[in-house]
């Protein structure tokens, strides 16, 4: 087996490590009273202010409708970094020791984990937007009479009362996606390398 696929696999497995440097996701809230929007960067191990004190100000805003404060930490912040480190190490070992079929295996596992992560994010968002304090200062209902939720979109842009909420992946997520794409390609490159070797 030639080097090319191994290099692709190695780079692909290491790119997700940028998640320790760059945010995975961002939620931004725009409103007329906020000429500088409020925003939160989500890292694999932290919620961070986009501008100083943004999270505090989001919490202040959200307490009117009974939303919980964005927590200092969540269990995922311990799990995600471990998962990324394990997957990067595993990928590195695979790149040096095994054949291309394992590369696809790594990709599939990573894809499943990513999906699980997105589902987990959705669950958190749903709880954050719907599990409201019964003593909420202001209670809003949908046209059908049900209690209005304030869940930010999983992906995209959505109007929530006077706010426009944007939820989009950030640089860290792009590195993760690029890494995964490279490992997927490495499978095919490896396969082709093997065929050409046989000929």
């Amino acid at each position, binding site marked *: 087996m030639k080097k090319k696929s191994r290099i692709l696999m190695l780079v692909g497995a290491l790119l997700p490590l940028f998640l320790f440097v760059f945010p995975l996701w961002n939620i931004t809230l725009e409103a007329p009273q906020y000429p*500088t929007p409020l925003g939160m960067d989500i890292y694999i191990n932290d919620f961070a202010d986009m501008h*100083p*004190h943004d999270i*505090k*100000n989001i919490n*202040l805003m959200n307490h*009117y409708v009974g939303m919980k404060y964005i927590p200092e930490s969540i269990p995922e912040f311990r799990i995600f970094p471990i998962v990324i480190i394990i997957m990067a190490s595993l990928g590195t070992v695979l790149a040096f020791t095994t054949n291309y079929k394992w590369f696809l295996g790594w990709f599939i596992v990573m894809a499943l984990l990513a999906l699980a992560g997105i589902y987990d994010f959705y669950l958190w968002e749903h709880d954050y937007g719907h599990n409201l304090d019964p003593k909420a*200062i*202001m209670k809003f209902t949908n046209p059908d009479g049900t209690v209005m939720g304030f869940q930010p979109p999983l992906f995209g842009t959505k109007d929530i009362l006077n706010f426009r909420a944007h939820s989009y992946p950030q640089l860290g997520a792009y590195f993760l996606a690029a890494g995964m794409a490279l490992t997927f390609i490495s499978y095919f490159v490896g396969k082709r390398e093997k065929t050409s070797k046989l000929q």
Partner: protein
Amino acid sequence: MKQISKILFITAILSLMISSCADVNKDKKITDGALGSNAAEKVYVAPGEHDEFYAFVSGGFSGQLSVYGLPSGRLFKVIPVFSQDAEKAWGYNEETKPMLNTSYGFVPWDDAHHPDISQTNGEVDGRWVFINGNNTPRIAKIDLSTFETTEIIEVPNSAGNHSSSFVTENTEYVVAGTRFSVPVPQEDIAIKEYKGKFKGAVSFISVDPDHGNMEMAFQILLPGFNYDLAHPGRGTSHGWFFFTTYNTEEANSLLEVNASQNDKDFIAAINWKKAEEYIKQGKFKTMPANYAHNVYDEKTHTATSTMKKEVKVLDPAECPGLVYFLPTPKSPHGCDVDPSGEYIVGNGKLSADLTVHSFSKMIKAIENKQFDGDAYGIPIIKFEDALAGVVSQAGLGPLHTEFDGKGNGYTTFFISSEVVKWKLGSWEVVDRKPTYYSVGHLMIPGGNSRKPFGKYVLAMNKITKDRYLPTGPEVTQSAQLYDITGEKMELLLDFPTIGEPHYAAGIAADLIKPRSKKIYKLEENEHKYAVKNNENVRVERDGKEVHVYMTMIRSHFTPDNIEGIKVGDKVYFHVTNLEQDYDVPHGVSMIGANTSELLIMPGQTETFVWEPKQVGVWPFYCTDFCSALHQEMQGYVRVSPASSNIELSWSLGED
């Protein structure tokens, strides 16, 4: 008969034509006015857009400094400086009361005069504005990152602090010259002993280049004239300071006559670099003094007042080369130096002429020792020897001159009520425009520096009479904005001012805007009684003194209910605004408190004192509409009889 009716008919036609012609002319006149010249367009700043310049306009007898935008003339803020301001609790809350302390005790008002912006290399740098209090001599410094007064220094041996607060070209010093000469040191003597006994002190207050801290560096004791206005040298004349004088007659009564007898008074040229040398050589006398130095600390959000006990004084008779007199007609008022530093303009208030002295000629005369005698040991330079030129018969009552940096001077004429534009060098009048009415100062943004932004001139009027809707006997003063980009000046706008504007300082907004603070950082709050989280909220009793450590955030106080307060207690409410968002101040006020509200910016702590006199339950509330739940932002204090033994307790949110 037919003839007559024919004539009548023709007359009727003609008159119709004439009147319709007149209508046409009327319409034309309108298009030739504001719309024709686009004056309205030139001052229109669309909603949400920002002005190009800040103008800091002195409030005169209001004691404050107002902040306007140019060219729109919109008022943004009135910065409390020398006068108590109940709106902002300036001089009412415990933190800022020391700012108004003087050697005469607490003085809650002053007559604010001449703002000047700090400079670096002769250009306005937008770090601080200085302004003088005229009545009880003081100089204040306003920090332009917070737009708050952060320092006030009293000026000893001085009375009527008028020829100030102008800065040298690297803000080495801000000066304070006395308008009224007084006995120095003060003593109980007959007023008739004025001549020779009274002295005029000019003070040089050093400014720390990093922190801006002011210190009384030294004073020069000049003869007993009235020191009216001043300007620093710049460029070639950097190192010198020029003061106009009047009453060189040294009259002490009916000055309007007795101080107007000499054909010429003086501009005092002071070599302050030389003064520094004399100070270094120890040629000063240390005089006992008593003056307040008040500093507001941005970290503790608290001011302290310190009494200073001595001042270094130089006597010009013992310091050759320190001061020279330039004879100048007649009772000159404004003393202005052009951007190059070569020309020193004496605005001869009682003369029709402007006298322009040449700095280089003055230096030459000094080198050649061509003097015309002396006054109290101070050499007088011959009028002709330093004369650069005269702008003759330009108007009546010249007061002040500013420069556009393109070779033109602009002078206000109080009596003929106009601004006159003239050329430096040829001294010819180029243009004149009326003001409405009786203009005093004028200001070109940066016009007091080496590099004016020569786009607008702002004229500040003493009288408005019929110019605005009447408001009873007291009507507003005003400022008028002229476009000076063309050969002829063009009146664009006039707008009312706060108090009577004596001078203003202007600067490009871009030099200040990026540095303007949005909040005070809570983690940097070092106020003695600050509480930064609700765990530390408490109420403590120390005898009859009670200290409430309270917080505020949208939309509640913590605590909101307090019990155990007694009649006769002195209750200090120390209130911290926990917000860290732009433009979310909270206010607080207590029913019957003999003081003002507090208006507390995010991250700041302020204190008011309440001395409950009646038993009962008394509410307090937030005075700044802070949020949708502002009306719910309130609390109660239960006041029990002095003899009661109810323990202190406090709460929030318990049902």
